[in-house]
């Protein structure tokens, strides 16, 4: 069975290449950027109508505009407390010293002094980078988005945890939200809610809510059932069982869900600036525009510090384990006194930040930003000057050897050939139902009129995923087999996951110029950490008995890896490839900012040219269709291989 499948795959690809050669350049559906199809013109007109109606139509007056006003007001309320001057005032309600005092106290009271110290130093570091106000804006935005997400996500999650029906209804949406590239839904949201904090908050929520729903329902579902049954048999009502047994038992897991929701919101901080979010995204994006790598890194560090701060302080609460030795009365008393003192300190610091200017506004003289900026700029310039030849050489090598041939195969052959091949691959890898789905979705792209651009994006995504998997598999196997390697790499992987892609898009542009490869390279850097983590987990999950048996039989390390560990971890590796592909796709489209063309560029140009807005919106939809096609094929493949 397995042999036949690989023969089938090989055969189809051969036929594909032959047909592509034969019919090269025919029916490619290529369209100049400024050209609209009847469909994109229609969508553009609808979008224009929608904009015109924003002050007039009932849907806006009674639904969308009030939502926008409420969320805007909520965000502004939090910003007034910590970030921007409150009404009739020149400073926020709480100045920097007060914020530091409160954060230190809250973290100390909920976890321990080490975490509190870390949180305080990270906060001060953001200030020292000259990013105090931007950081506060980002915290305010994150806080607003997280609170609103949890208000929706936790109840829905509990409901989905209790009812199979609800879970079944929600699952497709949760899946879709996970593969939805962020660039895609910003424009439609901005169209309805306009540019500003409200749109940015809603976009963040769309990203964060699915995560809190998933983890909460998972927490409820995986509880030890005996206490629940005991409670039921003792005649508790469903409500009592839920509030007295299930939720308290699931609390730790739900807190972990909060942690993940916070991290999702933080990862949105930068990209949300594209639709008007105040905060750290602004300096990052302006750095991209004027290509100031140093400034990009200064702001990027602040984003990373903020992410670590929020991660550690929320996960510390989740990890807090009840000690087996009950605390003595004396220990509890001592702890209470210390917490009390810390609380008094927080109150005093708030008071000071209200009454003394130095404690209210971060002193401009206390900054290391110019030094950091100069250092990174010098380092980057050195790299650019000295390694340019290598980087350009590498870029050209990849372009001529993989990128160009694949692009010509996908985009320069007739659309029906490529669609047929995608359907054939879906059939071989995923089976009949997947093939039908792939056909419908691919035809959707064809009918949208943006087939050619979609193929450009697809090419870049495939090449990016390929390179990601080469590096990711190697590192994943290494970390999967060696604890030491894992310890060494872990911090880099964590940092790589929190550093927003926009930050390294800037130096990538310097290294590779405005090319497709810049987008691909950024996508690779962005997706490697997740791939390494998944592969590593897969390798570690291979039963020890298997590996030991192979070792005892005298297999070499290489044999153990290729004959035992990789085959046993096949399903995980397929899932890692899928995750890598989705991540690469999400970033490759952002590459439209740096010359990669394709669907991403159409989304971006649609945002700035009214006559192309319809085309931009459709391009967003096409990106989503591409993502879904490949996600479905890979998921089906992974299911079959288990």
């Amino acid at each position, binding site marked *: 069975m397995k042999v036949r499948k690989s023969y089938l795959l090989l055969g189809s690809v051969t036929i594909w290449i032959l047909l592509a050669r034969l019919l090269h350049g025919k029916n490619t559906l290529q369209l*100049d*950027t*400024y050209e609209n199809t009847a469909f994109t013109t229609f969508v553009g007109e609808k979008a*224009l109508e929608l*904009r015109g109606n*924003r*002050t007039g139509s009932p849907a806006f007056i009674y639904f969308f505009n009030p939502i*926008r006003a409420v969320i805007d007001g909520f965000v502004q309320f939090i910003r007034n407390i910590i970030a921007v001057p409150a009404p*009739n*005032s*020149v*400073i926020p*309600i709480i100045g920097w010293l*007060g914020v530091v005092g*409160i954060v230190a106290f*809250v973290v100390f*009271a909920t976890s321990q002094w080490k975490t509190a110290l870390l949180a305080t130093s990270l906060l001060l570091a953001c200030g020292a980078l000259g990013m105090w106000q931007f950081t506060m804006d980002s915290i305010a935005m994150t806080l607003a988005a997280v609170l609103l997400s949890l208000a929706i996500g936790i109840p829905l999650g509990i409901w989905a945890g209790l009812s199979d029906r609800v879970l079944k209804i929600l699952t497709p949406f949760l899946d879709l939200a996970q593969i939805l590239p962020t660039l895609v839904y910003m424009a439609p949201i901005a169209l309805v809610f*306009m*540019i*500003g904090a409200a749109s940015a908050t809603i976009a963040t929520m769309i990203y964060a809510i699915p995560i809190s729903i998933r983890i909460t329902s998972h927490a409820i579902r995986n509880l030890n059932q005996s206490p629940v049954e005991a409670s039921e048999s003792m005649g508790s009502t469903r409500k009592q069982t839920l509030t007295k047994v299930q939720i308290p038992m699931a609390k730790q897991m739900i807190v972990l869900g909060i942690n993940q929701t916070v991290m999702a919101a933080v990862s949105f901080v930068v990209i949300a600036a*594209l639709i*008007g979010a*105040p905060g750290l995204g602004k300096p990052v*994006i*302006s750095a*991209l*525009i*004027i*290509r100031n790598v140093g400034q990009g890194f200064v702001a990027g560090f602040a984003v990373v510090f903020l992410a670590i701060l929020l991660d550690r302080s929320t996960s510390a609460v989740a990890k807090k384990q*009840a*000690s087996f030795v009950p605390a003595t009365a004396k220990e509890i008393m001592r702890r209470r006194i210390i*917490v009390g003192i810390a*609380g008094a300190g*927080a*109150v005093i610091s*708030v*008071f000071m930040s*209200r*009454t*003394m200017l130095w404690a*209210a506004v971060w002193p401009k003289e206390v900054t290391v930003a110019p030094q950091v900026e100069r250092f990174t700029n010098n380092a980057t310039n050195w790299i650019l000057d000295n390694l340019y030849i290598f980087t350009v050489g590498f870029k050209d090598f990849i*372009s*001529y050897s993989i990128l160009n041939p694949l692009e010509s195969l996908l985009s320069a052959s007739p659309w029906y050939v490529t669609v047929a091949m995608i359907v054939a691959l879906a059939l071989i890898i995923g089976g009949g139902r997947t093939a039908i789905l792939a056909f419908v979705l691919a035809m959707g792209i064809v009918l949208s009129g943006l087939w050619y651009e979609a193929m450009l994006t697809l090419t870049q995504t495939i090449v990016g995923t390929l390179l990601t998997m080469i590096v990711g598999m190697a590192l994943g196997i290494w970390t999967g087999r060696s604890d030491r390697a894992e310890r060494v790499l872990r911090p880099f992987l964590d940092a790589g996951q929190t550093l927003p892609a926009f930050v390294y898009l800037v130096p990538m*542009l*310097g290294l590779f*110029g*405005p090319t497709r*490869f810049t987008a691909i390279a950024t996508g690779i850097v962005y997706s490697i950490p997740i791939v390494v983590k998944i592969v590593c987990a897969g390798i570690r999950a291979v039963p020890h008995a298997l590996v030991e048996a192979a070792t005892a039989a005298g297999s070499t390390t290489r044999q153990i890896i290729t004959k035992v560990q990789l085959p046993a971890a096949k399903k995980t590796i397929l899932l890692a490839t899928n995750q890598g592909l989705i991540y690469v796709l999400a970033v490759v489209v952002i590459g*439209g*900012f*740096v*010359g990669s063309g394709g669907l991403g*560029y159409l989304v*971006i*140009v649609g*945002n*700035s*040219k*009214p*006559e192309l807005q319809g085309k931009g919106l459709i391009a967003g939809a096409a990106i989503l269709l591409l993502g879904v096609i490949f996600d479905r094929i890979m998921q089906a493949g992974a299911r079959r291989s288990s």
Partner: protein
Amino acid sequence: MKSLFSRRSAVVTVVIAAALVLSGCSKSVNDSAGGASGDCGSYAIAMHAWGGYTASAQVVAEVAKKELGCTITQTTLDEGPTTYDAMEAGTIDVVIEDWGGGRWKEWTDRGAVVEAGLNGNVGLIGMYVAPWMAEKYPDITDSKNLNKYADLFKTADSAGKGAWFEGPAGYTTIGEKMVSANKLNFKVIFSGSEAALVDGFTKAEANKTAFIGYAWQPWTLFAKIPNMESGHVKFPANDWSDPAKASGLTDYPESPLVKLISKNLNDANDAFTSLVKNFKWTNDDQNGVAADIEGGMTPEAAAQKWIDAHADVVATWLGK
């Protein structure tokens, strides 16, 4: 443990409540700092991507803050529809420089955005080769001869043709039309940002590599690469009266740059409204400030430097 946890959350709540109450009643710094709020309200200026825009916007912001006591927020966002939408929503009040030949019509027709006159800068757009090429191949700056040199411009990304680096997404660009109407053997590459073009031109000039790209004035790159203008490629002129129909034969026209304000600001008709309406300066003024910013000064400092040196001009904006 559970009871301790909930007691602790109670403590946290009490302390935060205390802090908030305290912050509500304690004497605020505001009184001692004496907020500089004059008769001018609180307004937001859109900050668009390019260096010249930053210069103009920052100068207006500094004058408004220091001379009029306005509270000014500066919001980074894309030019074009996103900004007009924000103006309609009331989150943006000023666009100090718009190149887009009337693309705001839909919004001005609705009364959401109001034209506030010209800002004195004149935009010139064109296609430029790296200046060293103009010197080595004197006839390259005539569009008819471009095909002869197309091979020089080949890159890994240009599909066997010459690479033609187009301006950023929001800018007025007609590269594809120019290429097809002039039957040029070039492929348009959407370089996406100003940074990419700066990078392209400077590297090409330094390494004597081939480059043809979109450029505009006022732009600080013209100060950095001294004979930049010599690389200006001339295309057959064409009628630009109807941008929608303008065929590819056209070279870009001169465009006087326009100021736009929100309905709110127009209706307020206060000191800031008249400052924005009166603001006017030259390409040289803008280039000077923009060059200072690019040279490492903060926008605030660069703007202040210009303001200090041109008190007379500022006075006319303020109607003094």
